[in-house]
């Protein structure tokens, strides 16, 4: 059976041949005056300038649904064209909300294989142009056997939340603590959609969306783009600019429908991908100094931090309540503000997580800089847990 973990080549490549050499992103939020292509090109230009490279050999664009949000498919070509990069190869990568992570992983493979020297991995989404966002996002679930029956994404995560509360006595307040923490972090991030803090009371009293999840448990509807430049480690050294090493790249899938999963309180795709990533990099969860995780809803952060192995199963809620995941906690989670406060332009999210890791590892995270950031983890997820990418990045 094909097993990436056991492949000698995968282990060698993940050993540290690839570097992230430059990053760029737009502010996340409601960018009324910017189009899908404007947003992407702005982020990509910044990344190219930031990296100091004079060209890119190839590019990957992560976007969930240019088609449903703005009626534009073939996004790879559109972006290469407007970036002035034709005729380089340009491919759109889609894995729902994990499109960014999957685009990064595709770029990683291309560099690691030695096929290209410099590759751009970007992500973009334009969600505020008037499309039915709930409908468009729901296409990441099982259309025929979940969405047909009126379920929404907040609804799917609400069902996980209720099961988690039932099984592990996770409290409603603990969910709210995730939002409070991430808003606090977001207030320190100039690119975040929400720079305002939220109190526990505000979260607990916000509009009920899908019981038990309220409006402030949910990541917002956002526009935004993010891009990073990957190259070989040798090439990165020549550029004499700050860079970080890609220490592991892992991915796993899960069943498309939530109801098909054995456990409704775990995300198997996360634990499987995490095991692969830790094995590739030969480290343990407790070696990680900070992580950007896919907190599309507050419950997701709680479950993901458990399944990544940061906390014992069922202890994710109490951990956030005790401040273990705060900026100055044992393992800071979502220092950027996460999807919750930074914003969640779906396809851009996975790349923006890599960017936060890069900023922390290169000491450029400003007011939210954590101490001794040596190893950062980025976990990006699609659907209700049908896709997961995990990348571990290391300071050089």
């Amino acid at each position, binding site marked *: 059976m094909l097993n990436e973990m056991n492949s000698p080549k995968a282990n060698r490549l993940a050993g540290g041949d690839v570097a992230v050499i430059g990053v760029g992103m737009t502010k996340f939020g409601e960018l009324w005056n910017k189009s899908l292509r404007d947003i992407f090109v702005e982020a990509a230009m910044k990344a190219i300038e930031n990296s100091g490279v004079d060209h890119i050999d190839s590019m990957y664009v992560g976007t969930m649904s240019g088609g449903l949000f703005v009626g534009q498919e073939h996004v790879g070509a559109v972006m290469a064209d407007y970036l002035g990069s034709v005729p380089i190869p340009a491919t759109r990568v889609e894995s729902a909300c994990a499109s960014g992570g999957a685009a990064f992983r595709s770029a990683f493979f291309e560099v690691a294989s030695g096929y290209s020297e410099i590759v751009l991995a970007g992500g973009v989404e334009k969600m505020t142009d008037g499309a039915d966002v*709930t409908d468009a996002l729901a296409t990441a679930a099982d259309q025929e056997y979940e969405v047909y029956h009126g379920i929404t994404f907040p609804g799917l995560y609400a*069902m996980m939340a209720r099961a988690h509360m039932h099984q592990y006595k996770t409290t409603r307040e603990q969910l709210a603590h995730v939002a409070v923490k991430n808003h606090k972090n977001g207030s320190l991030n100039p690119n975040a959609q929400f720079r305002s803090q939220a109190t526990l009371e505000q979260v607990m009293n916000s509009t009920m969306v899908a019981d038990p999840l309220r409006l402030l448990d949910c990541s917002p509807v956002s526009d935004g783009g993010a891009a990073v430049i990957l190259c070989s480690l040798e090439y990165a050294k020549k550029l004499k600019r700050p860079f970080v090493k890609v220490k592991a790249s892992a991915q796993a899938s899960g069943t498309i429908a939530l109801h098909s999963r054995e456990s409704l309180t775990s995300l198997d795709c996360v634990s499987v991908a995490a095991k692969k990533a830790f094995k590739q990099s030969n480290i343990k969860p407790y070696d990680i100094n900070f992580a950007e995780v896919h907190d599309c809803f507050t419950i997701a952060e709680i479950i993901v931090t458990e399944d990544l192995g940061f906390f014992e199963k069922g202890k994710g809620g109490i951990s956030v309540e005790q401040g273990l995941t705060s900026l100055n906690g044992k393992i800071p989670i979502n220092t950027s503000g996460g999807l919750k406060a930074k914003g969640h332009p779906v396809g851009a999210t996975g790349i923006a997580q890599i960017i936060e890791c890069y900023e922390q590892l290169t000491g450029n995270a400003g007011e939210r800089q954590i101490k001794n950031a040596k190893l950062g983890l980025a976990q990006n997820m699609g659907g209700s847990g049908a896709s997961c990418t995990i990348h571990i990045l290391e300071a050089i």
Partner: protein
Amino acid sequence: MISPKYHREIPQRYRLEAGKCKQCGTISFPPRLICPKCKSKNFETVQLSREGKILTFTIIRVGPDKFSKETPYVVAIIELNDGARLTAQVTDCDVNKVEIGTKVKLVFRKIQDEGKWGLHCYGYKAILI
């Protein structure tokens, strides 16, 4: 126009037809070509049990456009007596009375309309026993 897609799903939506693996007995709903458990490709068609219990649920307060006039409504993951699981609305109930573990049975209801001019789309919903 969703006619071809709707028509194709009728055996599952109307009659809860599933595929039971002849090798390991796992029930797949909807039917699959490969058993997710033992990878066998041999199935027999079975009808799912119409009774079961709620494993988890939510009350949708903000619905998609198609369902926005029906809020609040309950959507649950239900484990049927034969072990199969599905997602369905729980209808005809006080949304505050639903709990994990509540026993339900499946009934035939209209699930959604394809706009004002299109198809009425039917299927299964659950009611509390």
